[in-house]
């Protein structure tokens, strides 16, 4: 276990992605995993603040993308970060990159928010479904390495396929909704998504 001293403004080994997604920097996933462990082990507020600075605006961006208004996106993003703190003890770096783990929390909060909206009641302390916990993966690649491979594979897919994958796997749109948005036949959307995801999985862990 690496004890990580939190240095103000410390950003390690950021490197640019070659092409395709503009000036996006490859995140230092090992560092984020260290920060999560500091939060879990020592209730380290500086580590949490660093995670917050990086992830909270992205979570808010995700919720806005799903169609929420500004106030709801702000509220849900804050709730997600409260849950990140509370559930930090359940984070395991061998199981998930921090981005994967926080996505799950945001996703579960989304499901829960829809449920609460349906029920016409709002309880801010109503805990969401806990993040899914998995058995140790068989494959040798670490969770961070898997995320890095997905990101590298996305770089080599045509932009249109990246858009389809984003709509299906991130925004949670149905295939029909994606077909309407992309102005493509439904069958084309399905076959392209199936091929694109199979390719990502092949890069991930050698299974198709």
């Amino acid at each position, binding site marked *: 276990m690496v004890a990580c001293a939190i240095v103000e403004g410390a950003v390690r080994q950021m490197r640019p992605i070659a092409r395709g*997604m503009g000036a*996006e920097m490859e995140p230092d996933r090992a560092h984020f995993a260290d920060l999560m462990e500091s939060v879990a082990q020592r209730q380290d*507020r500086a580590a949490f*603040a660093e995670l*917050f*600075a990086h*992830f*909270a*605006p*992205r*979570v808010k*961006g995700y919720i*806005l*993308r799903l169609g929420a208004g500004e106030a709801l996106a*702000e509220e849900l*993003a*804050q709730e997600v*970060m*409260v849950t990140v*703190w*509370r559930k930090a003890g359940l984070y395991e770096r061998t199981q*998930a*990159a921090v*981005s*994967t*783990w*926080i996505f*799950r929390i945001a*996703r*579960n909060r*989304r*499901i829960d928010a*829809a*449920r609460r909206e*349906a*029920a016409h009641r709002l309880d801010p*302390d109503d805990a969401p*479904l*806990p993040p*899914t*916990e*998995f*058995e140790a993966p068989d494959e040798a690649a670490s969770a961070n390495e898997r*995320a890095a491979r*997905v*990101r590298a594979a996305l770089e080599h897919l045509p932009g249109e396929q990246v858009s389809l994958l*984003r709509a*299906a*796997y*991130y925004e*949670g749109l*149905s*295939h*029909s909704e994606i077909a309407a948005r992309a102005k493509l036949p439904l*069958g084309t959307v*399905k076959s392209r998504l199936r091929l694109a*995801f199979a390719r990502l*999985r092949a890069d*991930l*862990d050698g299974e198709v």
Partner: protein
Amino acid sequence: MSGAARDHFIDAYASGALGAGLSLLVETQALIAPDVGARVRAAETVAGVFLELETPAALHEEALAHVLARIEASAPAPESGGPARAFMAEVTRLPAPVRAAAFEALRARDWAFGGPGLRILELKLADEARVELIRIEPGFAAPRHTHAGEEYTLVLTGAYHDGIARYGVGDIARAGPDIVHRPRAEEGEVCYNLAVSEGPLLFTGLMGVAQKLWLT
């Protein structure tokens, strides 16, 4: 369910497109069926990378302070408590997401009698879905029945045969108005099932289309 329809179902869960009831179903299946777990993990990894790539939206300047204040104020939620109920030892050994929902339900209500050897616990997860934990004693059967809408049933422990096929741990059975059956638990082990019925629109939208296109 066919392989492609099942994949679509898993992906819909991972992306957040399913309602609370079906999300609980797939989340639980992912814990007991390794291939489902692997696909969920892959889909979530992809989604997490898109979160990395998301355009940041600035939060309120006091947001971190608000969040830290809420963390200070919050006490850990009570894990148990409530009245003593039947089958608590069995429920404790169910997969964690179902166990948590069952404990919550058992604080509010008891098992309902569904017939000889049959007990049903309603899990009030979502208004749009009927979610039930069903307990069948070994060798006992549910009454012969059909379904108003689509119903998905995940086997958590034991196994049953409904006269058409056998379903074991990790299997999801899909039944609609076209199916009349009488599930009978196998001898030897109590059979726990998680049954979810959601609104018909979801199924025609999600599964109906998927089945028609993939099964040809």
